């Protein structure tokens, strides 16, 4: 019986191999034919091609529809809402520019923002966009429970058709970044089914939404700005394998992919490599062990509570080698959670220095033992790295980190964990995290202490000075000046969260976002992408074009 089964298995494998062999030759022939066909079609309507088919991952589909009140544009992957206009926009360097707004002014106490808006904007149903619509949008969003954070907004008030005042509960200097992802909805056409039938004043109109499958967007003919070059945008939602199949069969123009697929060549397609702030790094608990939180979660780690150990780990990791090993070269070294953002402190960058790292560990009293692992007072230098199970990139980063730390005399183990337990375990051990937002609030939430506990939320750390700079940054009325304060929180010359400071987090890499792109499709320059593959790729789809 067993023999028979093995025979069957062998037959199965054989037939699969034969099938794949035949298929491949047939595929190339077919591919050529298909190419010939597309070429002749292209020749027929040269210059007329003005649509694009984009494949995104399944989680990019907004379950609750295209309603800004339920997170469209905001959340895990911030992006421009396309269908609706926003007051401000972020440019390529993540500085603030104007869309609907014509002027922004904030009071000196930071408690009221006065925004002037354009007078020539209409919704696609013909209604005029006024200050009342803006105020209605913000007040509605404040009252709905979604990923948009409006807890700092007291109320929005329309003074007249072109002026809106935002009354804040407390100063919030980075408000323009919130405005950049908040789509304005029409008060006269807003209701429970708005998400399925959105009306906006943006570059595109939602033509059709086949739930679970695709979204079809068409250029808004009455758009007040520059007319979109891409007249029709079709977005498909597929798993990673499906996305690859869509590209290989020539049915999509651009599809997301991962570094592990980059060895493939797809005829007629090239690889687009988008730079990101989608970083990976790990936390190091900065307080000694022994205490527990209110919920009974143990806090702190005796090894990493010594700042010299944390500094040694930071300079003891060769990030370039890691990028080659883990990401096939598709990434950039990360030295902070916000590399290249306007609020990023450039001195966070450090050089790889294994000797310096060793010296720091020696100085901290961790002496190299006979087995190549350092010891201090009978304790071994050990770290237990956690990664979220099922995420192969984080797993590989954990493994590579452990390998590199071995050379410094630090022993490491790794363990997969689910998000249900990971948050708690990270209070005592390093966890491989992924961050990367288009707002400095992330910096705040990672490093600022919480009122109730007096410790930062994701990894125990506390610094009054850092807290103070970030609070001042939020209270600052001038956005440009607030950048300086965010930078000071990272390093002010004496203290901060960088190498010469407390360094409670180690940043490893920024992961490039990769896409297969059909030859001839010109994808406009991308902003630094935030965390996660998603709608950000089509932020400027209106400026994409097909080369003749």
């Amino acid at each position: 019986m067993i023999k028979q089964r093995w025979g069957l298995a062998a037959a199965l494998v054989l037939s699969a191999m034969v099938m794949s062999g035949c298929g491949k030759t047939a595929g190339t022939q077919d591919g050529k034919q298909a190419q010939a066909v597309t070429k002749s079609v292209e020749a027929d309507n040269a210059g007329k091609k003005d649509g694009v088919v984009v494949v995104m991952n399944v989680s990019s589909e907004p379950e609750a529809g295209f309603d800004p009140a339920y997170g469209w544009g905001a959340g895990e992957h911030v992006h421009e809402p396309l269908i609706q206009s926003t007051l401000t926009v972020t440019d390529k360097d993540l500085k603030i520019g104007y869309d609907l707004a014509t002027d922004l002014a904030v009071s000196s106490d930071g408690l009221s923002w006065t925004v002037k808006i354009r007078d020539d904007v209409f919704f696609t149903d013909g209604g005029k966009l006024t200050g009342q619509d803006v105020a209605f949008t913000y007040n509605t969003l404040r009252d709905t429970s979604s990923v948009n954070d409006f807890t700092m907004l007291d109320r929005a008030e329309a003074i007249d058709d072109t002026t809106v005042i935002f009354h804040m509960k407390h100063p919030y200097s980075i408000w323009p970044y919130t405005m950049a992802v908040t789509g304005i909805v029409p008060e006269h056409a807003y209701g429970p089914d708005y998400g399925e039938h959105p009306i906006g004043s943006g570059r595109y109109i939602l033509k059709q939404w086949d739930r679970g499958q695709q979204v079809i967007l068409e250029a808004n003919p009455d758009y007040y700005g520059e007319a979109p070059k891409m007249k029709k945008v079709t977005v498909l939602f597929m798993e990673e394998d499906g996305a690859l199949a869509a590209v290989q069969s020539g049915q999509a123009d651009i599809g997301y992919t991962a570094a592990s697929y980059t060895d493939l060549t797809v005829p007629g397609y090239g690889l687009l490599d988008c730079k990101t702030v989608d970083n990976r790094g790990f936390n190091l608990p900065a307080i000694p062990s022994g205490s527990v939180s209110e919920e009974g979660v143990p806090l702190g780690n005796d090894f990493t509570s010594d700042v010299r150990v944390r500094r040694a780990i930071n300079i003891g990791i060769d990030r370039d080698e890691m990028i080659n090993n883990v990401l096939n070269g598709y990434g950039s070294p990360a030295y902070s959670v916000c590399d290249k953002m306007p609020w990023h402190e450039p001195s966070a960058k450090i050089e790889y220095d294994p000797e310096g790292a060793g010296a720091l560990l020696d100085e901290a009293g961790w002496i190299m033992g006979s087995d190549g692992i350092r010891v201090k007072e009978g304790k071994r230098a050990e770290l237990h790295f956690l990664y979220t199970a099922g995420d192969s990139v984080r797993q590989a980063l954990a493994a590579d980190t452990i390998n590199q730390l071995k050379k410094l005399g630090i022993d490491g183990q790794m363990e997969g964990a689910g998000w249900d337990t990971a948050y708690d375990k990270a209070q005592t051990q390093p966890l491989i995290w992924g961050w990367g937002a288009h707002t400095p609030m992330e910096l705040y939430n990672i490093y600022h202490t919480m009122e109730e506990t007096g410790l930062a939320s994701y990894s125990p750390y506390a610094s009054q000075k850092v807290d103070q700079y970030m609070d001042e940054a939020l209270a600052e009325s001038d956005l440009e000046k607030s950048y300086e304060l965010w930078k000071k929180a990272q390093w002010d010359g004496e203290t901060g969260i960088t190498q010469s400071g407390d360094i409670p987090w180690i940043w490893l890499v920024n992961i490039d976002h990769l896409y297969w792109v059909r030859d001839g499709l010109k994808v406009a320059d991308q902003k630094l992408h935030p965390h996660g593959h998603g709608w950000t790729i089509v932020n400027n789809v209106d400026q994409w074009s097909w080369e003749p």
Partner: protein
Amino acid sequence: MKSSLSGRKNLWFLLKQLGRMAILLFLVSLAAFFLVTVSPIDPLKVNVGQAALGSMSQEQIAKLSEYWGTDLPPIERFLSWAGDFLKGDMGTSLLYRQPVSHVIGVKLSNSLWLMAVSWLVSGAAGFALGTLAGANRGKAVDKVISAYALMTASTPAFWLGLVLLMVFAVWLKLLPIGLSVPIGMEAAEVTLRDRVVHGILPCLTLSISGMSGILLHTRGKMIQVMESDYVLFARARGESKSQIVFRHGIRNVLLPALTLQFASVSEIFGGSVLVEQVFSYPGLGQAAVTAGLGGDVPLLLGITVISAAIVFTGNFTANLLYGAVDPRMRKGRKSA
């Protein structure tokens, strides 16, 4: 007199079955709810995402955890759900922010015909092939069919789906890579032909993987029948093989096959979950996965109850059909 008595008996039988269904649905929903509450998934962290939580104030996080109901006692949540359900209100999906009945309605209309066709095809083809193999035991045709059945029995549906996708969509470019409608086409232009073409691969996958069970059982039963005394007697009377198969074989094999086929509704259901993922087909399976992984309790419970009802109906239909196929069963039921 006699007919009214049997009518009352039939009614009693029906009521009993409906009562069983109600109890079953209650227990299933209770079990599903229990599993959701002990599941380690934190809907807040799953749905909002770690990076989004990172750029949100503590106040907003508290507001959201209230929305996801992470701070309400489970018993309270279940009772309020069950109370509304009895009144005909299946609740509002937390993820889709729409009534659960609406979400399920849309999804079910997508996948119901997919499942129905696969179920019919796998049943009919499995039965026919099984009969053929059983009647020709040991011959080449039997060996080929059995080998095929054993092979598909041990093939995961999603893998089969991927292979079919690679062969027919990517290499041969004959069929679409997935979805239930053509890419970029407006709903008004979608024809029935488009829908059928998009359903071929998922249907084929489900049919192939669902066929083996009924095929192997039918074959086994057929072999038993062919070795029975009454077939020997028929042979002695000079009946031809095809006569034997049609007069004695199929009649005796049909009953267990029907049971199996109606019981396999649940398997088709399970298979469709995986197949819909592979082919990006927007059916109930896909919604169940989203609801389960996202901790959307009202939607998950709604889907569970609906699927349990469908599976129960499958088994119930088998019960009814017994009587139609085999008069002895009908009598047995009456005297009981």
